């Protein structure tokens, strides 16, 4: 790795950490009833599923940093 990226530490994988902010703060995206799952409106299950998707966004960044020994 060259000196510049080492200093600033930016790698595209960090963009993953922004994804949950877009997915959850853009409320019109999920403020709806359909599609339902087991009778649970979209609004409720979408946000609940994001508890796992948020984790899925963080793990690659963690693995990247561990490999780099940060």
């Amino acid at each position, binding site marked *: 790795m060259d000196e510049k990226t080492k200093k600033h530490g930016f790698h595209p994988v960090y963009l993953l*950490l*922004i994804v*949950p*902010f877009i997915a*959850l*703060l*853009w*409320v*019109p995206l999920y*403020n*709806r*009833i359909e599609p*339902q799952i*087991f*009778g*649970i*409106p979209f*609004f*409720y299950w979408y*946000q*609940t599923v*994001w*508890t*796992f998707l*948020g*984790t899925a*966004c*963080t*793990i690659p*960044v*963690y693995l990247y*940093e*561990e490999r780099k020994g*940060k």
Partner: protein
Amino acid sequence: MSANPVALTVFLVLFFATAGLGFYATKMKSVNLSDLGQWGLGGRSFGTLIAWFLLGGDIYTAYTFVAVPALVAGAGATGFFAVPFTILMYPVLFVVMPRLWSVAQKRGYVTAADFVRGRFGSRGLALAVAATGIVATIPYIALQLMGMQIVFAGMGLNFTLNLPVIGAFHDLPLLVAFLVLAIYTYHSGLHGTAIISVAKGILVYVAVLAAVIVIPIELGGYGKIFAAADPSTLLLGHGTANNLGPQFSFASLALGSALALWLYPHSITGVFSSSSRSVLKRNAFLLPSFTFALALIALLGVMAVAVGVKGMPEYAEGYRIFGNNFAIPALFLHSFSPWFAGLAFAAIGVGALVPAAIMAISCGNLFTRNIYKEFIAPDCTPATESKVAKIMSLATKLAALFFVVALQSSYAINLQLLGGIWICQTLPSVMLALYTPRQLNAPGLLLGWLAGMVTGTWMAISLQFKGAVYSLDLFGVTIPCYAAIIALLLNILIAYAVSFLARAITNAPVRDETLAEDYL
């Protein structure tokens, strides 16, 4: 509310056995509790698993178990903002907190104010951060006391005492909650609390998983549960051409709360007690498992409406005293067999006790290190230091008790949102200072903080402390926004602008004792 003997016995045994475990654990480890680093920070020794339980026990509080489902039961979709909040706080944990942990570990900082003092060489700014931390935590402790009070009352411990002089005394459950917390915190410290966090985690998961399986079966499935909900509150209202509407306030509450969370003294204590940066990063993707539990608990609020506990005569008194905050206790009493209701109540009770203890400990730390040692008695011994911290932690609990009595809020969640407005104002000094130290200095940060605190408090007063969403009129458009965010934006603007001016005018020397490599 009459006591069910089975439920009450199970509750008392589990609750007090768990609290007792804290004392016992402390005795077994022969920890020197007169040392502030031990009583207040657990010796920075907790690995991934214990940190998972401790941070989980620390962050998921009566807010999660009582206040959020109460808001969902009473106001519908709005209450669900707690789910995006507790998801979005983890990218913040992952990116920001390892930097703060590193510099704290290298320089021996115990509080956020210690860091601010080191970074900017300003006692005044450190004092502002410390005082804000204490003031913002008091309503949060109040929320925990209220959680315990509701649990004790729900178990039937709410008879009225007729005292001489004072007269009728109704607040026995609150008094019991306060005494348990005070005695527990004084004797246990963070080591004991780490142990009972494990018990809390197990109790909470057992109770929640049982509830989300058993109750929908009783009610005939989730479809019927949502069909029984008020259709007008099932989703957030849409905005209009000149009002951004509830969707915007929902997002602002989630974002503001996520930014505020790691600034709280108890969160920082939890973070600093971890043994390494990697422990924090791993927990940024392990802790969301508790957020999943929070989402399920929020759904219990919808179930409380479907079951109709609010209209049942046996819970009328609970609702009269605690409003919708009684929704989950009533739902548990109604849906579970007595022994399991006792277990679920113990989960809520311990769930409030653990964070309240850590909050009180952190306030003690802040006062001792950044106010008492800094301004009153610089040469005090470690033993005195520890004693002052313990006395101060008791004082914050008394202040919290006052809050509960004075602000008997229909939604307990407002107590937490109020604290959030204040603690957010330390974000520039604590978080932005990790990244842009040269663009910020003490005069700018202090003025920004002052502006944020004044406008934030003013908005809270204009809402009569009954809400936290302030409607801002800007260019003919109404923007309903969490007051913490509005005050924070003003704070940041002033902090950078005044810092820039101060640097241009005075050319004052930089008094940063930390080095760039301390943060890695």
